[in-house]
Each structure stands twice: as C-alpha cells, then as structure tokens.
C-alpha cells in the first residue's frame, strides 16, 4: 500500500463514518491519555463511532495529518468535518457543544444517570491494519 492509497483509505473512512475517531490504541485499550479521554467523552454520550488505531504504521499518522492539517492525535471527525483534538473535544463535552454536534442528549449531572441504550455502543474497527502489508 503506498502513501496515496493510505490517504484514500483515510478519506473514505472519514466520508463513510458519521463519527470517526483516529486515536492511539483502541477505545477498549487506549494507548495514550489524550486518546483515552476523547474516546471516553464519546462513550459517555452513548454514540456509535468508528475508531482507527494509528499506531500500527507511522504512515497512517503522516497521511492523516497531511489530509487534515492537524498535527496531533487524536482527531475527531463528525460528518466529514474535523472537529478537533483532545482539548477541543473535552471543552466541547463540558459545554454541551459535543452532544449538540453529535445530535444526542447529554445527561445532566444533577439528574439520574441516563438509561442504558437499547443497542450497545458499537465501535467498528475499520480494518486498515490488515491492508498495510
């Protein structure tokens, strides 16, 4: 797989997944505190999102930053648009702007915890890992 093919794959992932998170590690086993906090914000809003671990090959990160113009990981895209990295996602979570951008209700701290979603939150691994050899 050459650089252009990696970039094309990343573009497709961003286009095809309404909520797309590029991170270090996975939502279940994040490999960096910034990625962990960002995935955690999405998890607590009970949204479905696709996640891609950028660690298996340095070219993923190079091509992602070339595409997005954003230098660090994580990077969250909603509806094809770069929303930001860990700081922005944390700030938006606190203000409620993240829930709004995702079109979900954010449980108020003063109220009872939100009921468990009927369908479990699913993170779809998108499988670039297997195509890099």
């Amino acid at each position: 797989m050459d650089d252009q093919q990696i970039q094309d794959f990343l573009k497709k992932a961003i286009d095809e997944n309404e909520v797309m998170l590029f991170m270090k590690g996975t939502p279940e086993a994040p490999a960096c505190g910034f990625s962990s906090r960002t995935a955690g914000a999405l998890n607590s809003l009970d949204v479905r999102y696709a996640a891609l671990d950028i660690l298996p090959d340095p070219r993923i990160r190079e091509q992602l930053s070339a595409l997005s113009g954003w230098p660090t990981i994580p990077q969250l895209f909603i509806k094809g648009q770069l929303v930001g990295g860990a700081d922005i996602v944390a700030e938006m979570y606190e203000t409620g702007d993240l829930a709004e951008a995702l079109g979900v209700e954010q449980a108020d701290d003063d109220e009872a915890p939100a009921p468990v979603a009927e369908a479990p939150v699913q993170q779809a691994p998108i499988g670039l890992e297997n195509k890099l050899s």
Partner: protein
Amino acid sequence: MPDANELKTRIEDAFPGAEVAVEDLTGGGDHFRAEIVSEKFEGLPLIEQHQLVYGVFGAEVGGPIHALSIKTSTPGG
C-alpha cells in the same frame, strides 16, 4: 530540545499583546500545555484558534514537541 520558556516566547511573538503561560507537563521537554489569552481568537471557532497556535510550531508539533495541549480564550472571557 524545546523548553517551556522558548515556546512561551515564540507564542508571544506570534500573538502580540497576548497573555501566555506554558507548562512543561512532564519535565521532559516534549509534552507541553499552553494557555493563551488573545484578542486574535475573537469570533473564531475553537478549531481555528487551536490551528493558529499549532501554526506557530509547524512540523515541530508531532516531532520534537510530542504533545501540545492548548487552552485559548479572549480577554473578554
């Protein structure tokens, strides 16, 4: 190796009149947090505010500067 003072000076040069605080989070010279209060951020979406700050360091962020955590605000609040 970059240090917190160097980052602070470079941000101040890029944002004249801004209040800038930079902390070396690990003491290792590669994970930093910058807090910047500048009029330049007025009316800009958060993502563009952060991009302005990242723009000061170009490819150094992700290179020698492994992580740069950013908190931006305007003098008005």
